[in-house]
């Protein structure tokens, strides 16, 4: 192994990213590194260290626990099959609160608008936001508007921040996954990402697939109704998909996760689109699904609780937590063999090979 690193003159193409690439926002390894090496050291504190979908903070002098989360939405196009950036902006943040175990209380909304955006488009987006917020029953209580010069934005970016209340006895945290726990998913995976891809320039195809964008707070409430302490981890597998979320959990909790791929619900059209583009549904984004890692003794009851709700009708048990291969996700494949399901590196790209 005679490599003298001091003599190393190879350009090391991708080792250090001198500039940000899209993959840094892709929810995969690059995102994780950005957080770990840049944001975490800069802002270090206990609430942040959890690296959950949001932070849970206890009010001074009380036992009241508040969940706080923020998310920015930069999807293109602004409207896509089944949903829009407006629906995403509400449901995405509601879901981040729900994944902290919180009941959503209120939201804020910040708009960064590119000069020239048609007013009618903005009005349409805001109307969709208002509808989505009303459906959840969460008010948008404050906001902000900024306009940037033409060419300095992509039409419209939205940020929403959410405040929620964490009920007593609820304790969800990525590090609570423990060997023997059971992994549940609340429905079919990959719908959102494929719906968005289907209208991208250069990739378009005709399909009935619609985004699954939906608020998940009622599903989490249904899980807690079975037994609050039985719910160990909650995640909504957005960017990076099921594979990204499970890898994060495995790494955080230092456990292995075994996924039975045959049991993961995937719509036929989503599977087909993935075949066509050379993508893996496990890596495709969702906006209305949750992963729950629960105590084994509660798994069946929680599965029933999910299935009893319209958004969880296709919920399934898809895997379990193990003390083997800590930090890794292993798949039992369609033909009953084994494969490693690595964390996604950056954005998912269609392939020909």
């Amino acid at each position: 192994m005679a490599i003298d690193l001091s003599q190393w003159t190879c350009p090391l193409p991708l080792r250090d990213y001198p500039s940000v690439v899209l993959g840094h926002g892709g929810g995969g390894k690059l995102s994780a590194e950005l957080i770990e090496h840049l944001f975490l050291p800069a802002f270090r504190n206990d609430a942040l260290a959890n690296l959950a979908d949001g932070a849970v903070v206890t009010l001074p002098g009380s036992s009241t626990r508040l969940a706080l989360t923020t998310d920015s939405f930069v999807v293109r196009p602004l409207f896509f099959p089944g949903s829009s950036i407006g629906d995403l902006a509400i449901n995405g943040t509601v879901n981040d609160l729900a994944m902290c175990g919180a009941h959503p209380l209120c939201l804020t909304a910040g708009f960064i608008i590119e000069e020239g955006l048609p007013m009618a488009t903005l009005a349409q987006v805001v109307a969709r936001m208002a509808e989505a917020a009303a459906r959840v029953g969460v008010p948008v209580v404050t906001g902000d508007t900024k306009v940037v010069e033409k060419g300095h934005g992509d039409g419209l970016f939205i940020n929403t921040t959410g405040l929620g209340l964490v009920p007593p006895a609820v304790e969800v945290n990525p590090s609570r996954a423990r060997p023997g726990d059971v992994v549940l998913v609340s429905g079919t995976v990959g719908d959102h990402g494929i719906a968005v891809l289907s209208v991208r320039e250069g990739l378009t195809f005709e399909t009935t697939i619609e985004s699954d964008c939906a608020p998940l707070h009622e599903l989490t409430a249904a899980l807690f109704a079975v037994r609050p302490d039985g719910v160990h981890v909650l995640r909504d597998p957005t960017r990076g998909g099921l594979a990204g979320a499970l890898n994060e959990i495995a790494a955080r909790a230092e456990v292995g996760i075994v996924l039975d791929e045959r049991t993961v619900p995937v719509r036929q059209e989503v599977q087909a689109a993935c075949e066509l583009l050379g993508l893996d549904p496990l890596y495709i984004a969702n906006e209305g699904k949750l992963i729950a890692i629960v105590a084994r003794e509660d798994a069946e009851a929680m599965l029933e609780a999910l299935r009893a709700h319209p958004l969880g009708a296709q919920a399934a048990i898809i895997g379990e937590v193990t003390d083997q291969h800590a930090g890794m996700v292993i798949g039992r494949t369609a033909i009953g063999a084994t494969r490693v399901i690595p964390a996604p590196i950056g954005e998912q790209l269609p392939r020909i090979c």
Partner: protein
Amino acid sequence: MCLGIPGQIQAIFERDGVRMGKVNFGGVVKEVCLAYVPEAQVGDYTIVHVGFAITRLDEQSAQETLRTIAQMGLLDEECDTDAAGAACPIAPWGGAAPPNHSPQPNA
């Protein structure tokens, strides 16, 4: 190198003088160039790579392959005289095999 997916031709038309078609892949419909499968008709299955049908899928061969695999254990027990399992005297393809437990090639 070559992701190729079977889909069923739904419609055939011409654009810019090129034979094109709509191909259905399990519910996803994509425009595909059919210039290289001049014999293919609506209803036929083709294998599509980067938006081009590169061959017509021979449905009979597909069934035969599946049938042969499905009967493998049975056939080999009969001709297992050769320890290496080398030259099975029974033709590997077609003919001999009654389709009694051929699997359903369905999605």
